[in-house]
């Protein structure tokens, strides 16, 4: 019931905001989005206190929290139902989504000044879809929400974006949609070769795990082919090298609040889906392919960081560094160890908060200076002390300063992958290489901060630079507090994540 309530409340609010006059749209949207945010925080608290030790939603359906199932469609023999529920993996992601949406909406008050009711309406529509993606437990329902994220995102980039918004929007749209279709085809090849009669994710997990006698195509087992097709589909969303080229374009052109959502939540859709489908349902295949997948992850880490090093645009720097950070998640997932997989999931949350924070801070600076180029400005610290202070803190969080969430996430991943049995002898090498990525991150972030924030004040443009408004800085402060809270007490979410990860590690024959 709770999930349905979140979905319905947000959907109603979406309609309300679409119809509201532009002047009130921003305030109204913030109020509307506060409902699912508070709701999910309450659910988080309930989960934390009442659902200790709850298992994985896909592997032990009896343990699902806040579950609800209603039959929906019957297509021939396939049964589709409205089936939602949460476990320790989706609960933190749901909370991340709702909280970040509210903050992103508040941060949009300053930069968004045209067609406001449509902008906020689309943001809320996206929130509905995102809530659905993280809570749906039926493939059909999940896919409806998954694709539902695409449409508002496409319009948000295309209408309110920067100069090259049309190119960026269509590139985003084409990349992710083609990826979805490849994934869809790959998954359904499996569905139809295993005599499934239900499309619920637990049923699929069960059927794929026990599937035998699958056909082979050109000597390769169908399971492997499907795994690769699905990995491709989700990897575009993550994104990993070499499927990442839509990301910098989308980020640079998107308005700041949209970048926040893109980096903070949308990329996590990819890794969440990888964890649910590839690494839970097809765990055996994932174990077999662990080394090549880990290499893809490590290459993303290093390559993303190198690309970030070469940028002058602050937003591009953060965008490329996201590729790098998501590479860690892949490395953690393939490790198939409690710390590796748990850390990867934790890193999704941590990166969601930190990259959201970074984009928001860059946005606040841009609202004032109207430039994002590193060479164009310096000495902002004097003029915007609060903003710059938080920006520096966030950057250190990104570099992995202990007691911040980024450190915890990356530490867990390295801890888990260094001795990962799935990676065998390659584990220490790959992990060390990935660790080197942190050094590069520190390099470009320190360089960028030094040039823009410190030293004597100068600015190429003529804009008056003064401290940002309270409602611009407040979301930054909230995010920073969350980053620190999760860094000091990772168990706020790491405990529930591990409870839901451990069943995944127990299944399958591998290692």
């Amino acid at each position, binding site marked *: 019931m709770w999930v349905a309530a979140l979905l319905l409340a947000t959907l109603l609010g979406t309609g309300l905001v679409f119809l509201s006059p532009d002047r009130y749209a921003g305030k109204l949207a913030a109020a509307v989005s506060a409902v699912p945010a508070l709701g999910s925080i309450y659910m988080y608290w309930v989960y934390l206190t009442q659902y200790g030790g709850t298992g994985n939603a896909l592997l032990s359906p009896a343990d699902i929290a806040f579950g609800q199932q209603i039959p*929906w*469609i*019957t*297509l*021939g023999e*396939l049964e589709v139902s409205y089936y939602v529920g949460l476990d320790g993996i989706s609960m933190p992601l749901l909370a991340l989504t709702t909280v970040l949406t509210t903050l992103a909406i508040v941060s949009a008050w300053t930069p968004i000044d045209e*067609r406001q009711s*449509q902008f906020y309406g689309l943001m809320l529509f996206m929130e509905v879809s995102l809530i659905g993606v993280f809570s749906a437990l039926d493939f*059909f329902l999940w*896919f*409806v929400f998954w*694709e*539902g994220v*695409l*449409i508002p995102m*496409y*319009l948000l980039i*295309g*209408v309110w974006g920067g100069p090259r*918004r*049309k190119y960026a*929007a*269509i590139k985003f*749209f*084409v990349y992710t*949609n*083609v990826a979805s*279709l490849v994934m*869809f*085809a790959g998954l*359904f*090849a499996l569905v*139809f070769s295993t005599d499934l009669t239900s499309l619920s994710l637990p049923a699929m997990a069960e059927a794929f795990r026990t599937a035998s006698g699958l056909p082979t195509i050109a000597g390769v087992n169908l399971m492997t082919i499907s795994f690769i097709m699905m990995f491709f589909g989700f990897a575009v969303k993550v994104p990993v090298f070499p499927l990442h080229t839509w990301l910098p374009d989308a980020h640079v052109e998107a308005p700041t609040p949209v970048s926040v959502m893109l980096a903070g939540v949308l990329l996590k859709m990819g890794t969440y889906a990888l964890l649910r489908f590839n690494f839970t349902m097809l765990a055996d295949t994932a174990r077999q392919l662990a080394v090549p997948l880990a290499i893809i992850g490590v290459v993303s880490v290093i390559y993303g960081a190198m690309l970030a090093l070469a940028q002058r645009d602050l937003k591009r720097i953060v965008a490329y560094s996201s590729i790098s950070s998501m590479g860690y998640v892949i490395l953690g997932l393939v490790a198939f160890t409690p710390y590796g997989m748990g850390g990867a999931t934790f890193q999704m949350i941590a990166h969601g908060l930190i990259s959201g924070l970074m984009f928001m801070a860059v946005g606040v600076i841009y609202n004032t200076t109207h430039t994002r180029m590193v060479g164009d400005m310096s000495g902002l610290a004097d003029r915007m002390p609060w903003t710059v202070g938080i920006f520096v803190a966030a950057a250190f969080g990104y570099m992995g300063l202990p007691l911040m969430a980024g450190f915890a996430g990356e530490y867990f991943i390295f801890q888990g992958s260094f001795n990962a049995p799935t990676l065998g002898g390659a584990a220490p090498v790959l992990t060390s290489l990935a660790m080197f990525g942190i050094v590069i991150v520190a390099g470009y972030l320190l360089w960028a901060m030094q040039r823009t924030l410190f030293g004597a004040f100068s600015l190429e443009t003529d804009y008056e630079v003064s401290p940002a408004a309270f409602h611009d800085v407040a979301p930054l402060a909230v995010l920073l507090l969350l980053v620190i809270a999760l860094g000091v007490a990772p168990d706020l979410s790491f405990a529930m994540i591990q409870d839901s990860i451990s069943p995944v590690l127990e299944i399958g024959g591998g290692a």
Partner: protein
Amino acid sequence: MVALPDWMALAPALSLALASLVLLLADSIDPDSTNTGLLAGISGVGSLLSFGFAGWFITAGTGMANDTGVALFNNQLVIDQMALFFMAIVGSVTTLVVLASYDYIASHDYQAEFFSLVLLSATGMSLLSAANSLATAFIALELVSLPSYALVAFLKHNKGSVEAGLKYFLIGAVSSAVLAYGISLVYAATGVLRFDGVATAISSGTIQTISEGSIQAQSGDPAVPMAILGVGILMIIGGVAFKTASVPFHFWAPEAYEGAPAPISAFLSSASKAAGFVLAFRVFAVAFPIDDLLAAGGAINWVMAFQILAIATMFIGNFAAATQETVKRMLAYSSVGHAGYVLIGLAAVSGSGEGLSLSLSAGMSHLLVYGFMNTGAFLFIALAEYWGVGRRFEDYNGLGKEAPVACAAMTVFLFSLAGLPIGGGFFSKFYLFSATLNVGAWSLAAALIINSALSLFYYSRVVKAMWIEEPNGSRTIESYPMGLYTAVVGAAVVTVLLVPGFNRVSEIAFQAAQLL
């Protein structure tokens, strides 16, 4: 409870026919004055009644009491679930078209004739849904076609419209001749015109005759000449391909849809296509059962023929749509592409029984969803034409700012046509997809996926123009016509409601296909 007389089963078709006659009567009372409201009202009541009757009969279970449905006129017409399903599609599309035409033709002459022709054509479609013999099917088909030739050329001072009408008529006449010849060959080979009789002839291998309503083998048990039958079937495939705008007889469609008044394009591309498909479904599923045909050493495997046609139609329609410069023509080609999707209903068939029901009902479900989303899209074009917006993609730039409600509806149609799960289109495409995988027709499944991806590209060009591009030039929208808006928004609402409601549609379609 009083049982209705049997002929009442034809009420969906009768109400359309009656309304068209009332229109002519109303016009002849005072030929010099035109009351658009009255004319559209009569047509609207007629088409709504038709839809209402069909819906009522479906829910009341007409045609499900026994496996043959209500048979009329010596089995020449059969009203079963399949017939009612398509009568409902025709009724709903006609209602939308009439509603939109109220504004669209307000400034034209010969309105009574216009509405009357629309309803006559719809009557033909309704009858075609129930036709149970090649002869009635052919007559119904002509009743569909002849008024629609006139309708396409309705804007008689517009060169494009007249040219389109003439092309449509010429190609239509040729394909009618092909179909008639095909029917005559089938008759020559089997001795009967009734679908069930043809099937008996094929399964028994002897030429049949009908005496006193029952099918019997002709005296002397002459064998069915399979080669002649094969040629006949091939020609019937050709006739069907014309009516459904499928490859290789698709090339009239873009011309006709572009030149015709936009509500008529909507009517032809949705209702007329559906009527073509019901004929195909019935003829091939009932009269030419594939198992018997192959067992009897039939010269033609129509499943394979439809597989080739489906794939070719999907690719040609979608690739051509992707290269168009005008919105209406793009939609016209996309409608060819959708014919390809529906053809999967006949192409993903494995024998008779369950496999046949699944693929047929997938095709039927797609036609119903398509009836709303495609009609809606063409009616949006009608709205744009009403406003004097140009024909090219660029002319739609920034329309979203001036008419957000209509453009939001159009966005729903386009994304639903592309198969995004915002409307029923995703579900019906998925149903088709599962039908292809059910029989292991990987090539069809791949074609469906590839073309869906491609179609998103050209549909989103319109979305991009409406919402993302800045308006160019000085276009002012002065009025928001009630009828057109109601039709467009109504179609959009139904398209969205088909997301939660798709289950009911697929269930009814599946039952209908099973009872066939």
